[in-house]
Structures are given as structure tokens and as C-alpha cells.
């Protein structure tokens, strides 16, 4: 198919071997930003994402801060810095 050939080949007038029609879909769907057609038109509520996630939905989003702050280097460094400020003030 023209689109899948290198550019200079696109206007080639040689008849190409037969290709099944279904293959033509792939050329366009490479556009990965486009919402895809669903294979079926409609589905039951139990097949929705919401039904699947009922018991785990609350674990999907988490708070954006981290209270467990003693474990990593950055927090340790921060404490050091704050101590320095404290010390400077007392001097």
C-alpha cells in the first residue's frame, strides 16, 4: 500500500501483490493519540471499568505528599540544613 512504502516508492506504477483489506487499518491507527473504535457497540455494566474497580477504587489515587520522610537522602539533607539555620540563629 502506498502509505506503507518508502516515499519514493509511493508513486510506483508497478502493481503490488495482493494485500488483504484488513491490513489497511494499521496504517492509520499508528496515530496513537486517537481514541479507538471499540470492538463492540455496547456492553453490560459488569464489563465497565467502574464495576471492576469497586473494591479497589480507593487505592487508585493517593495523596501527593509523603509523610514517611526519614527514609530518603533528601529528607535527611533537609534536616541537616534546618539544623544549620537553627545554629546560625543562636550564635
Amino acid at each position: 500500500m502506498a502509505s506503507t512504502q518508502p516515499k519514493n516508492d509511493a508513486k510506483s506504477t508497478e502493481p503490488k501483490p495482493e494485500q488483504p483489506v484488513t491490513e489497511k487499518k494499521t496504517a492509520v491507527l499508528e496515530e496513537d493519540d486517537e481514541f479507538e473504535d471499540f470492538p463492540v457497540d455496547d456492553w453490560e455494566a459488569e464489563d465497565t471499568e467502574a464495576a471492576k474497580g469497586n473494591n479497589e477504587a480507593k487505592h487508585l489515587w493517593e495523596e501527593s505528599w509523603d509523610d514517611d520522610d526519614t527514609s530518603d537522602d533528601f529528607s535527611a539533607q533537609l534536616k541537616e540544613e534546618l539544623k544549620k539555620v537553627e545554629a546560625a540563629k543562636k550564635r
Partner: protein
Amino acid sequence: MDSLIRTFSNAQSSRDGYQLAQTLSPDLPQQQLQAIWKSCGHHDAQNVIKRGIQNSTSGFEKLPKDEVQGWSDVYLAYWKAIGELLPALNQAPQSSWTKVYDAWKELLSALYRGYIGQGFEAWSIPCLYVVAKNLRFFALKADEERNNNVAAGDTSGQIFQDDFDPESEQNQKLEDCARQLNRIFTLCLNDRAPLEESRKWGIYYIINLLFKTYFKLNSASLSKNILKTLSAYRGDMPPLSAFPKSQQVTFKYYEGVLCFLEENYFQAEEHLTQAWSLCHKDAMKNKELILTYLVPCHLLTTHTLPSQKLLEPYPRLQKLFLPLSNCIKKGELHAFDLALQQGEDEFVKRRIYLTLERGRDIALRNLLRKVFIAGGFEESKVEGGPRVRRTRIPVAEFAAAISLGSKQMLETDEIECLMANMIYKNLMKGYIARERGFVVLSKSGAFPGTGV
């Protein structure tokens, strides 16, 4: 052609629109297309088809004369389009996707005329879906092919005009396709028949096609016009929830992304969450697309981040969001900037860069919050009273934290400016006592929503 007419006849008697639509699909094995094309010749196609349609129904179900003519025109146009499609699929000389597009457009026009003046009934609108969807597909093919030819230096057939505009030239057929789809949109919207037999049931399918087309043409504003028109008619429309879920989800996705692009994040979150909940659980690609916009929304509206569990099935999203998320959590400003820079191309392409950039505020909030927590508690004035956190914090402490986090030394003025911004955005509660070099934070919820 005979078997097409048989299916046509069955579909007519059972009034099955989806079955009928199958007879207008170009998406068949080549042998089948070949057989349809060879079943009649140029000289007799018109008569063969018309006779077939005429004899396909009988008795009470006999089609009115107008409608026979209408469907005959439709199948003649279909037959002609197959005649262009076959050589294009085989890249035969003289064939082109532009010709396929033009022939297919004739087919859509024949259908259009059928609904306008020849009594086509609303149950048959899936025919519009199939034909409109493929018109868009052929438009993309035609533009792609032509652009490749131009790149290869073959400009024959190109008419150069004074107002030559390479941008619109590139999407010539797709733009034409958008106009055709818009016609169909109006055709569905303006049907005055009672709801149960109205073409209004076709509206969301067509709108979704239009959205996809407009997005590809990079004109979100035209999509917005569709939404405006739709809301003007909403009173006369069946509710969205009465439509198939595939249509609901697609519509909600695009409505959400449109709000997102207008920085209307609360509404965007609402639409996208609906799309997410209704989406088929196995439609991974679409779920990934929904999350691509839902994650930045969540960050700005509720200041929450996606959990490992949520992103687990999507390696691409992990790559996109996890580095940023980690930096936000830890308040590492410098690392955040780097992560943002690293993903810049992808973020810009997805149109989420500006939104994610605002996540820096959350990172800063978390950094300041750490300073507050590190400040510990003050001795209670009352013996055994509740412990109170230290709320008078020297600006110098925040300055040290920000310098550490952003890996650059900032002037005190700049620090104060950042703090003032935090307070203004309600990410931190308190005031700056400048002359004393202190920040005085609220005793009840210094960092709203974060438990301290």
C-alpha cells in the same frame, strides 16, 4: 451483488439497521469486493441494481417508488466506489485514494438524498455510520498518498494558486470530509420526527467522528461549536445515557479533553471520570488515553497522584508520570524540573505540559510542609494540654529548604515571593511577618487538605 440484495431484503423486512449497514462496508476480503464489482458492467449496472432492489421486497413490505430509486442510487454509488477501491488496494496504475474518496463521497451524498427526500427511515442510520466512518478513513489515505507524492516531487495534478497554503493543502480531503460530516450532523440534528423514529439517535456517533476529524485538523474550536449547537438542542434529545456505551465513552473523552484544553480542569475531570468508569475494562488503549488527561486533572483539582496500582498496566504512562510523581511527593524541585524537561517533547505532544508544569506548586507545597513538620511541637501552655505545632517559622528555614530543593541560591525577596504565592493559591495558610523574618502559619490547617 445478488447476495448483497438478499441481505438488503432481509434487513428491510426485519428493519435491522446494522445488518443493512453491512451491505455498504468496504471492509471485505478482496475476493468478495471483486465478486461485487464483476457482478455487473458499466452498461447494465443501473438496471441490474434497480431491478434487484425492486424485487427484493414484496407484499406489505414493498418499498415505495421513491425509496426504491433512493436505494438503487445508493448501491450504484457503492458499486462504483468498489470499482475505484479495488485498483487502489492493488496500487494499480491510474488508481488513487483520491478517486476512492471522491467515489465514496458520492455514496454518502446518495444516502443523504435518501434521507432528505426519498423516505429513508431512521432505523437505517447505521448505514450512515459505516459510510461516514470510511469516508474519513479514505480522506486520511488520500491526503497521505498525495503528500507522499508531493514529497517525491510528483506535482502533477496539483494546481498552484496564488493563495497556496501548504497547511490546508496537506489536509485537503480531510477538511472536505469534515464538511460532509457536518452535513450529516445537521441531517440528524434537524429531524423533527418523534424521538423513537428520529435520526437524532445518530447524533453522537457522527459527533464522535467529527471530534476525531477536528482533532486531527488541530481545530479544537470547531469541536467546541458542535458542543454549543448540541447544548442548544439538548432539550429535544434523548439523554446521552440512552446511547450505546461505546458512543458515551468516546463522547465523554472528547468533551473532557476539550475542557482540559481550555484549562477547565474541574469539568474536565468530571467528564473524563465518567468516560473512565463506563469504559470497557479490556479497552487498554482507550483507558490509557483517558488517564493521560485524567492524571494531570487530578493533580490540579484534588492534588492527588496516581497510585502504582493504577498505572501498573500501562508502561507508557508509568514512564510519563512516575518520575514527576516521585519528585512532587518528596518536594524535590530540581529533580522535578529535570523530569519535566526530560519528558517535554512527549508532554507537549500530548498537550499536558502546561498542566503538569503547575504541579511544581504541589512539589513546593510538600517541601514547605516538610519544614513545618520538622519544626516539631511547642510546649503546651497548659499542663497536659494538646500538643501544638510550631507555627512561627523563620523565613531562613524555608529559604534553606528551597535552596536545597531547587539546587540554587535564591534571594530572600524571591523566597518571600514564592511563599506569598503559596498563600495566595491557598496551598498554605498564614502570613509573612517581613520585618521579623518569620512566617506565621495557621494553627488549624497550615497546609489545607494534608492533615496538618
